[in-house]
């Protein structure tokens, strides 16, 4: 038989303890976790993630951009808050770079899906704390230049993740290089064989016919990618079958190269067939090279 009203006193003791402990250092951490924000700084930890940003390597913001405007993230973003327009050079040819890359952070839900699907490690999550803006609409639509942040910054906010990504990229590059080499050897062998065959053929026929089988391949392919570029996302949803290949396993190296091939072949529209094998080997490094070339041209 407990004392009358002892339940109330027990409760009062609990609140009294909570009250008193906030005044002692020992209980501070647990009982008074409030951070006095503007004075005591932010509460960003290594695990903080809020909105995505685009990485660039090296010093040049735009030239070092990893993003190749493949638009996978645009298609995958659940609330559809990414908007990408590809850049074209003066010949109307697509460059592997977004001209417009907007993220509406008022819509973005920080789900990190864009980061997961990006095959080029070009978009990652930020942990910036002070995102307050004065304008409800314009300021919350982050454009490409606002989104671009250096790889060094990424290393600063999420060191381990950044290192893992860099290692991943390096491994990919090495693999691609090896593949490229193998392919070049193959191409050389093929060229040699072709040359031999051509020699034979030239004795009999004209040259154009011989080049036809090479042109066959890109002719078949542009259909799918060009559709992708032309159609809006809403339409793309109706044709999931067409989408599935790049969507499902974008992280796999083979798919990447395929993707890049699609992009490049879509861009070049089968004109530069001779360059095809080199471009298919496209990785981040290659894109850069290409971007530099493009810069040189313009």
């Amino acid at each position: 038989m407990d004392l009358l009203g002892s339940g109330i006193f027990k409760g009062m003791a609990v609140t009294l303890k909570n009250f008193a402990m906030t005044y002692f250092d020992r209980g501070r951490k647990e009982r008074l976790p409030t951070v006095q924000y503007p004075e005591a700084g932010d509460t960003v930890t290594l695990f903080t993630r809020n909105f995505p940003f685009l990485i660039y390597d090296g010093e040049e913001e735009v030239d070092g951009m990893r993003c190749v405007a493949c638009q996978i993230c645009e298609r995958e973003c659940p609330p559809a808050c990414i908007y990408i327009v590809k850049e074209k050079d003066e010949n109307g040819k697509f460059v592997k770079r977004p001209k417009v890359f907007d993220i509406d952070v008022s819509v973005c839900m920080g789900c990190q899906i864009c980061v997961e699907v990006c095959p080029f490690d070009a978009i990652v999550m930020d942990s910036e704390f002070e995102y307050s803006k004065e304008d409800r609409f314009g300021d919350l639509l982050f454009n490409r230049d606002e989104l671009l942040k250096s790889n060094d910054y990424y290393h600063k906010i999420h060191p381990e993740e950044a290192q893992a990504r860099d290692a991943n990229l390096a491994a990919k590059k090495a693999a691609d290089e090896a593949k490229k080499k193998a392919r070049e050897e193959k191409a050389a062998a093929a060229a040699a064989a072709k040359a031999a065959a051509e020699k034979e053929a030239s004795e009999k026929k004209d040259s154009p016919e011989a080049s036809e089988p090479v042109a066959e391949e890109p002719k078949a392919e542009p259909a799918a990618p060009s559709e992708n570029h032309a159609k809006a996302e809403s339409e793309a949803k109706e044709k999931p079958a067409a989408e599935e290949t790049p969507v499902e396993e974008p992280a796999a190296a083979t798919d990447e190269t395929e993707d890049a091939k699609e992009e490049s072949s879509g861009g070049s529209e089968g004109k530069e067939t001779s360059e095809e094998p080199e471009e298919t080997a496209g990785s981040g490094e290659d894109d850069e090279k290409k971007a530099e070339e493009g810069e040189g041209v313009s």
Partner: protein
Amino acid sequence: MLVQFANWVQGELACSPALAKIVGILLAAVPLATVFALCFAFTTWLERKGLARIQNRIGPNRVGPFGLFQPIADGIKMITKEDIVPRSSDHFFHLIAPLLVLVSSMACLAFIPFGLGMTMSPIDTAVVFFFAILGMNTLAVFLAGWASRNKYSLLGGMRAVAQMVSYEIPLVLSAVTVVMMVGSLDTREIVGAQVVEGWATSENSGLRFLGQIAGWHVFTPWGFAGFIIFFIAALAETNRSPFDLPEAESEIIAGYVTEYSGFKFALFFLGEYIGAFAVLGLAITLFLGGWNGPNFQPWWSSDPHALLIPGFVWFFFKMFVLMAVLIWIRGTLPRLRVDQLMSFAWKFLLPLALVNVFVAGFLFHVAKEDRVWASVAAFVFLYLVAKGLSRMNQSDAPAPRKYHFAE
């Protein structure tokens, strides 16, 4: 000091009694209103800080040191806010209700002796008057609920009436014991009765020290039970948690203040706190020795009645301690249900208060030498009664629900 000043002014104005009277009233009322408005401001700060700490927060800390000027900022906000009156409300009563709450609460303060000779309206039926005017509070709250023409306001007003009327009975009954024992309705006499006269004027300073405390009614069995009943009923009477049903946010928005905004809301708020001060002041007067406290004779004075610490300091100290307990309770106990509220008043507090009255009457007639034994017996008896009452009330609580398919 103020008292002396007032007396001096009275002396100067002795030639025209009417003017002297008006000035006297003003001189008493203005400091009272000012001091209690300040107390109110401080209490809101105390409440917010205390609740915050209880809930492991920091609380207001931006305006002034430790956020002490927060009430001023709040006041400015309240005054400058738009005053919205519902179109279909009864404008006159809507306006008058907050004023009535404030006026009735303030008027209650007039009967509380804050110190020696510091009773604003020293009349010999102060306790009765106090409860009579406190009853006006109920009316004002119901007026607010009805005049707003809003279902939540009306519900809040109804609840307030039911609650305040129910709890007024144990409140008054517990006060009755004190009146019985002291034999006076005058608050000054009640305070005076709580000093052990022989000790308090003795030469031994230790004994005098004790004499200021030992006589408090709260140390007698009937006083102890009475104080607890009074305190609980006071919580309900002033709509404080856990009896804040009339303004239960989770059920009826803000109850009878739903349709009030801006300065009128501030008036309600102020009136409620002043009402709490008044009821606590009466509790202090009746049970906690009023303005008496452990005190010393100042070394420069030879008058045995002179006090080093002025009486009102003790009074306000006790008031803020009780206020802190109120805040503490608010931070601890969840709100009652309406049926629990009612059954608690009628089935527990009321019988206990009645028994307490009889116990007090019994003790009044016990001879002096048997006082100690009678007191112990009375303590035990009252506890057993309370325990029995709580037992009886538990029986009609539903049995704990059995879950057949859980687990």
